[in-house]
């Protein structure tokens, strides 16, 4: 099996002397054991946020968008900030599962399942905001090109918002299919081990009658390749489209040609940060240290450094071009001297510090191989990327063309509530997932046990000496 030979100097992806059965046991354990106190506590916490958030949404829809801190000049605030933030977070999942599959990156196998789950849950959160930010939600369906009773009325295909609708929905559906397809054999595994009839029934349904025949496996791998091919362009298309919301406008600071690549890089940047945040917890809680190894973590940190670098370049370009243009209208864009010392200086510096300064620490192996620092920095990056979107939207709008209409934005409790609500919703989904789904693609993982499992590597190492 030369094709599957891997140089012994490569770090093992599965450590601890695992047998196939050990893997099965380890993956199935979180699902078959009873949930711990910690899990229940965090679920309750998440539920509370979730309920509060949806109360705030109900209030907004009941009284009007005036419940938020927006004004005549700044017509988007936290709503679209959160939308872009959540969509961005989604990106890592698809990247890991699709692009890395095409590149045959084996290390993806232990993280792709959770990464994709995160993608899907994040996109769910993202989808909430474009809906509730509408002044008249009840006629929101008009954004779909439906045959309608309004005579010749049709959607405006020039509008980036409409492109968003298509981009997001496509992205969501493809991700879901890809994710579920990968889950089928693992569901089957759980099904075969299930003891209570109820669990058996559920997992039987989910497993789609998987038999594990050679043919099944062959089809399975074909299909994952095809879907990966489909999903790959989406990784780039979605955030490109989102960036068009700004890039195609005429507002200074929005009207910027480098937005598409810059947004995609930023999305992957924040996506991986979120994957780190979640996996570092999951791996502790579900005792998966042997599968999500320091090697995995380090690789993902490297991805963060690279995409972070792209983002840095984008920032620098924006700042320089703004200054170089010599246009007084550029004095106060979100990356400009005006922003740096202006009333939003705190937002500006939050962006710079969280996205440029802090992640640079990952250049050092010591930091990037340190669980604690990885977790902290990942969190900071998540915050920083939120600020990036906030700055782009709010700072640019608050200092637009005519000084007479300059204002500033301050969120209301409702703004905050809605945001926390989505975080709660996201956590609820992820917690339930961690308890009921196999969080690691065990079948795939087993196929590489012999190649990069620690034991076998050791063996091979001996043979070659």
């Amino acid at each position, binding site marked *: 099996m030369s094709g599957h030979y891997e140089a012994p100097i490569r770090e093992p992806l599965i450590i601890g002397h695992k047998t196939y059965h050990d893997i099965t046991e380890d993956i199935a354990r979180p699902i078959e054991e009873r949930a711990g106190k910690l899990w229940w506590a965090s679920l309750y916490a998440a539920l509370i946020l979730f309920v509060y958030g949806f109360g705030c949404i109900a209030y907004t829809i009941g009284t009007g*968008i005036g419940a938020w801190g927006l004004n*005549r000049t700044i017509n988007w605030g936290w709503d679209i900030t959160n939308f872009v933030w959540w969509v961005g977070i989604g990106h890592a999942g698809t990247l890991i599962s699709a692009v890395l599959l095409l590149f045959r990156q084996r290390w993806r196998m232990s993280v792709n399942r959770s990464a994709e789950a995160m993608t899907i849950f994040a996109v769910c959160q993202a989808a909430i905001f474009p809906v509730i930010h509408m002044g008249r939600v009840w006629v929101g369906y008009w954004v779909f090109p439906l045959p309608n009773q309004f005579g010749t009325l049709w959607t405006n295909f020039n*509008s980036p918002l409409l492109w968003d609708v298509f981009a997001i929905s496509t992205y969501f559906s493809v991700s879901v299919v890809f994710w579920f397809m990968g889950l089928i054999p693992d569901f089957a595994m759980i099904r075969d081990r299930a003891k209570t009839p109820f669990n058996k029934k559920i997992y039987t349904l989910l497993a789609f009658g998987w038999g594990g025949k050679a043919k099944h496996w062959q089809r399975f791998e074909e299909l994952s390749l095809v879907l990966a091919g489909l999903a790959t362009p989406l990784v780039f298309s979605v955030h490109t489209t989102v960036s068009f919301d700004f890039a195609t*406008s005429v507002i200074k600071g929005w009207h910027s040609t480098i937005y598409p690549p810059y947004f995609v890089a930023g999305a992957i940047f924040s996506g991986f940060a979120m994957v780190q945040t979640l996996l570092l917890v999951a791996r502790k809680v579900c005792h998966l240290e042997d599968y999500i190894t320091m090697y995995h973590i380090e690789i993902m940190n490297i991805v963060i450094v690279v995409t972070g670098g792209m983002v840095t370049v984008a920032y620098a370009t924006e700042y320089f071009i703004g200054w170089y243009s010599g246009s*007084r209208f550029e*004095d106060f864009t979100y990356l400009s001297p005006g922003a740096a010392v202006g009333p939003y200086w705190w937002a500006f510096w939050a962006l710079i510090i969280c996205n440029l300064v802090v992640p640079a620490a990952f250049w050092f192996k010591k930091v990037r191989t340190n669980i604690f620092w990885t977790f902290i920095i990942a969190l900071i990056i998540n915050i920083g990327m939120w600020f990036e979107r906030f700055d782009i939207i709010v700072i640019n709008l608050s200092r*637009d063309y005519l000084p*007479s*209409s300059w*204002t500033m934005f301050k969120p209301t409790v409702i703004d905050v509530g809605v945001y926390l609500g989505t975080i709660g919703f996201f956590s609820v989904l992820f917690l339930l997932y961690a308890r009921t789904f196999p969080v690691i693609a065990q079948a795939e993982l087993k196929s590489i046990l012999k190649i990069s499992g620690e034991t076998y590597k050791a063996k091979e190492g001996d043979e070659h000496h």
Partner: protein
Amino acid sequence: MASNKIQFRSIHELKDPTLNAKLAAKEFQNEIPVEDFLDNSENNSGTSRRDFLKLLGFSTAAVTLAACEAPVIKTIPYVVKPHDIIPGIPNFYASSYFDGFDFASVLVKTREGRPIRIDANPAAGSLGTTNARAQASVLSLYDNDKVKKPALNGEEQEDFNKVDDFILKGLTESQAAGKKIVVLSHSFPSPTFKKLFGDFKTKYPSAELVTYDAFPYAAALDAAQEVFGQRALPVYDLSTSQLVVSFNADFLGDFNASSLEVSYAAARKPGENMLRHIQVESNMSLTGANADSRYRLKPSSVFKTLVEVYNGLNGGTSDKLASEIVKELQAKGSNAVVFADGSKAAYVLAHLINQKLGSKAFTGKANFLKEYDNARFNEFVSWLNGGQVGVLITNNINPIYSHAKGQALKSAIEKVPYSVAITDKKNELYKASKAVIPFAHWLESWGDITPETGAYSLMQPTIQKIYTSRQVEESLLVWINGKNNPANNYYNYLKANALTLNGGLSFNKNLYNGFTAGGLSTGLAYSGGNAAQAVAELSAFKPAQLELQLYTKPSIGDGTQSNNPWLMELPDPISRLSWDNYLTISPKDAKSLGLENKLNARMQLDGDTVNLTVNGVTLKDVPVFIQPGQAEGSLGLALGYGKKDSGKVAETGVNAYPLFDGYNTVLTNVKIEKSGEDYEFAGMQLQNTLMGRYEIAKEVSLDDFINKPVDEWNKPLAMHTIGGELPIGKVDLWDAYDDTDGPHFNLSVDLNSCTGCGACVIACQAENNVPVVGKEEVRMSRDMYWLRIDRYYSTEQKVEVYEGLKEGMAVPELYGSNLLGIEGALENAAENPDVIFQPVMCQHCNHAPCETVCPVAATSHGKQGQNQMAYNRCIGTRYCANNCPYKVRRFNWFNYALNDRFDFNMNNDLGRMVLNPDVVTRTRGVMEKCSMCIQLTQNVILEAKKEGRRVQDGEFQVACANACSTGSLKFGDMNDVNSEVRSLFSSNRKYTLLEEIGTKPNVFYHTKIRNRKESLNNK
């Protein structure tokens, strides 16, 4: 005994009495056995599955139907349709707007018998122009806080019966007892009213007519008495003047009882003889904001300068500023004119200077609008205190609120045995008076006014009296002729008298025109004036550390209409603050006194408050506003605010009248001490400077305008392309619309003639049902104005690129903490800035950024050039507003109509009567903006179609251009080769706003010209 006849309904029934029962049984073949289905007996036999489904279906349908309940709107058809009212077609009536403070000859637009807008009356020339208050007065008619019923001794009456009995009794009694019968009214220049009062006096010889005005022009009238021997203000006409020097005279505002803006604007046409305007003042007034050269001096120094100028003209002066002004005055001679305000002596001197110059601006006509006489009023007060007043009839005034000694008057009035208040509010006077007669709004009244020499203007009701109200004339008739006398008809009385005054016009013709030559013929001529004494008085005026100058705002005026939400929300043209009056102070003084204005996290203003003590009278917690351009050592405070018991809106602000003792607008014995912090102002615009973006509001000095080529001061933008340099219009991403067929509308805005008065803003609000949002929402920067007037403070030296940024750093209130530590690059300059006003409405771009981004195409381009907004297609993503470079789109954050949270005129039936039925009110969640009054232009087109003719130039109207008395706003059809707007388009002063974005607006601007020699600037 009961009869046993058989009642049968048909012959068949007679044959077979059981027929009915049978038929009934058959009638519903298989009726749904609801009962045995609903009762929970074990064997609910009769109920089949189908019955169940029927029930289910029925109830579902019922519930569904019940759920969608349509709003119930009551409509009442005409039983007999009035011949002159066609539903949907507006009627216009010529009338006179007069509320005791303002006068204007106007056209009233009515729909189905409701007045809904006030238009200027072109026939009346400068007397036929409408300011913000005139425009808004239609809403005061529908004021829900009005007195709705007459009252006697505190209890409301259904009719006037008892009230009249009471008064007639009082009249005869006090007549017998030889007590005074006083009619106390605001200035009332109505010849017919005067005549009527004459009749009243013949009936009751002890009757006296006394005038009381809240803002009385006492000094001006006394000066006129001295100089012209008449208590009437001189009428000025600036149209041929070349120089106007004003000493604290707000002649575009309340000075001289009528604004001079029409002739002022006419004289300021750019060119060799353009009127030059020098303003020497303390407060930053609307007039000062328009000046070519403005000098900030505290009131005492303004007086001194005036004296020096007088001396300079008669002999010589050492004062630098004065001698410069004198030089200019002498150069212009009779083409110059001088105005002064603040004290009698100042007026006298100004008159005498004009006399010496032989100023042509002095027309010799007299303005009769103000009649107050201090001596006379004091006489009345002495009667009052002496208990000699038997009957007191007050007409639409409230001295208890507006007189400095109000409380003293209150107790005195309460002592009057028969006191009648003709009032529109349940205010202090209402409570102090025995009887109350609801005041009839001018739109409900007959009347005539002689505003000035040779001018006669009629007032006619345009709506049936809404409540049981009665105008003073009708009351007088009743009290002369007794109740239910056929002679008690003021219409006939007026008709008879008008014929003697309107120069032989038939009454109906006169009504039709509204305004006509006639009335009084007496004019004014210089006949005296003691210069020495005036000079002495002014020289003796003691300067003080702090000097307070009281003023009236273009919005609220003397406070007569202060319960009018439109006016209360209308931002002050200078400070751009709405819903407040405040103490204006210069930045330097504020610093030295440790008073601050800070911006909060929403970029709204928080100010300190002070306790203001003037001659022992203290006003608590007056908010302080730091006003660039305010003279050091001077303070300003607006009158007319803080009315109690006159409606929620009127209570806004502090009442400054208690300081207005002896009607001195200039007060010297002033002390202030800081009393609090963080008073919440509601600002419309918090960034005061252009931040170096001078192409937004262009201005150029007259010399440059005349002598330098256009490219130096109004260079059209060009873009470097691969095909060389091209004008911005030629470089385009989009296909042009075909606008050749039918009209193509353009709006021209001339920054040179815009005085910032705000009449257009109110006109727009009235025409388009723009909601009032209230102070809290304005403070959230959520005003709903479709048309706003931006005000920028400019500075002398043009700041280079990035200096613009410094400006930003420098304006202290802009950035709470000045991180760069750049100290006031602008601050010093900003102490006496030039001011430039810029009306901004939807620019109706031919390539509109808003149109491309709307996902549902709710906003799209109109055939006639408008950028149209389909409210009921809008889903409220607000993307269009974000992408609008001019930020003219307004979002309905809440329901502003029928919402207790916004308890203004749109929240009560009466107030909603002002709504224009041609324009929908917008609901929550949709975007709205200027429509170029499409309802008006379409109407014109349809009319022309019906008559089968082309639309003439000037027929097309929009509310704002209509209301603009200076002609700054001009609207018209570009496809009409000889339309005015088209000729304006080719002017070399023309530019479009933010041209470089390539939006190709259908609104264009004209560069402002400052008539100034740099040598004169003491900056």
